């Protein structure tokens, strides 16, 4: 019940992000969501895409260091308190969130939050018991 995130190592140099997006465009990959974390020297680009396998292949052959990361995609109501409720479920079960990012998808009233948590199984259990709906990889790709 997990989704796949594509993670890319990027030096902080002008033009590198454009090269990522160009490579994905050429491969016909559609980006659903992204998040960028950075230091002075480099950054890590995290992508949710419709075709993860194609995206990874295209980026690797363009010379990027790229990996697949197992993440949890959770649907949440797109209103005040929606994110707080989901985050509370995770933290109250004692799990540590490495990072998260959210996006407003095209699924009616709902938004999607992507969690990166080391103990995936425990997190899924906690979220399900709290009544959250977890999106499958296919559902996520279909957004």
């Amino acid at each position, binding site marked *: 019940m997990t989704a796949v995130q594509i993670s890319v190592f990027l030096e902080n140099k002008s033009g590198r992000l454009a090269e990522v997006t160009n490579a994905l465009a050429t491969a016909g990959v559609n980006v659903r969501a992204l998040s960028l974390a950075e*230091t002075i020297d480099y950054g890590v680009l995290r992508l949710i895409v419709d075709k993860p396998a194609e995206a990874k292949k295209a980026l690797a052959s363009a010379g990027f260091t790229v990996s697949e990361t197992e993440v949890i995609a959770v649907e949440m109501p797109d209103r005040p308190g929606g994110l707080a409720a989901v985050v509370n479920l995770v933290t109250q079960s004692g799990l540590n969130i*490495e990072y998260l990012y959210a996006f407003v998808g095209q699924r009616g009233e709902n938004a999607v939050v992507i969690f990166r948590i080391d103990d995936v199984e425990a997190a899924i259990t906690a979220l399900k018991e709290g009544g959250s709906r977890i999106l499958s990889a296919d559902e996520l790709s279909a957004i």
Partner: protein
Amino acid sequence: MSENTPCWNRPVEFMAPDQLRALQSERLRDLVGRVYEKVPRYRQKLDAAGVSPKDIEGIEDLSRLPFTSKDDLRETYPFGMFAVPMDEVVRIHASSGTTGKPTVVGYNRKDIDTWAEVMARTLAAGGAHAGDFLQNSYGYGLFTGGLGAHYGAERIGAAVIPTSGGQTKRQLQIMQDFGTTVLCCTPSYALVIGEAGRDMGIDFSRLPLRVGFFGAEPWSGSMRQEIEASLHCHALDIYGLSEIIGPGVGYECLDKSGLHINEDHFYPEIINPKTGETLPDGQMGELVFTTLTKEALPLLRYRTRDITRIIPEQCPCGRTVRRMERVSGRSDDMLIIRGVNVFPSQIEEVLVGIEETSPNYVLVVDRKPRGMDELEVQVEVSSKMFSDEMSKLESLSTRIGSEIENILGLRVGVRLVEPRMLERSMGKAKRVVDRRDLGQ
């Protein structure tokens, strides 16, 4: 002119060339006999070369002897090349080896005495004398710079101020308050002192500082001008390496036109680094030394890997001991950063230890204007090293930096970079980018 040239040991430094040659020949015969008898590795090397000590009649036979390299010292680590019993050894220093183990050197009492003598010549040639306040900002420790300069300075009767390196503001305060007249440090640290002094509002032209002895790292003629303008003192180059003795192998006089070699103790040759053939004076090649008088660690034809030439003409100062030109490069890939010898193989070893594979890396050396040398280790992030979590990447680069510092004793910058597909596909990876201006 030569009568007025400041000088520590006039009989030797101005010795008639044929007399000097006779002295060198006599010392070489004694040396070869000693190492053959006392050092098993030399016995093997000489036997393998088919040379017996009795074949060596004089300095003209030197080229019949086998070379010694850093590998010989590494393979006999730590004390295997010592030629005296350990209870005669009174000092041990160490510098970087090409891989994990350092290069270890030892001295008996006579070697320490020789070292003080050659450093005394070095300091006296720049006009230092009893009554001077000599601030010694070379690092004290395993590095030979600090104690080497210290003993020479005491020998000439200067008041030594053993500040060692670092704490620049305190250095400057001492320089002002004690009235330092002579400074010893690396050339890049001299520029740091100058810059920090200006920031503190110090006018160096009003200080009694007269001369500085700068070595342990490569520098250029333009850097000399910069230091002299900044510190308002003579800036003299000194040359040495711990395998031969430490600082004191070669020294500039105030004519500043090459480094006189203490060749009654350290006999220089220039060879073709590829063929090993001895080259005549004047030609560029690799500098090789035979330690004519060393007792604890005598070396035959030690390959320094430094590229230079012997200057055939006599120096205007009148000294007869020959001069070498400022070192212009290396015949191996060793870098000298803030006085520390750095081999790319040492860095590679650290990276392999962390990643269990051989990652691609580039070493970038830079010297900021009026700044110290900086080494940045750029490590290509492979899929194996890569993590989507920033904290893991940050702790990886911190770990690389601290392990390198542990091995080298040198703080380096670490930068994680993307793989460079193109540069690698064009053949052997270029490991070192040296952006320092080290020209003549």
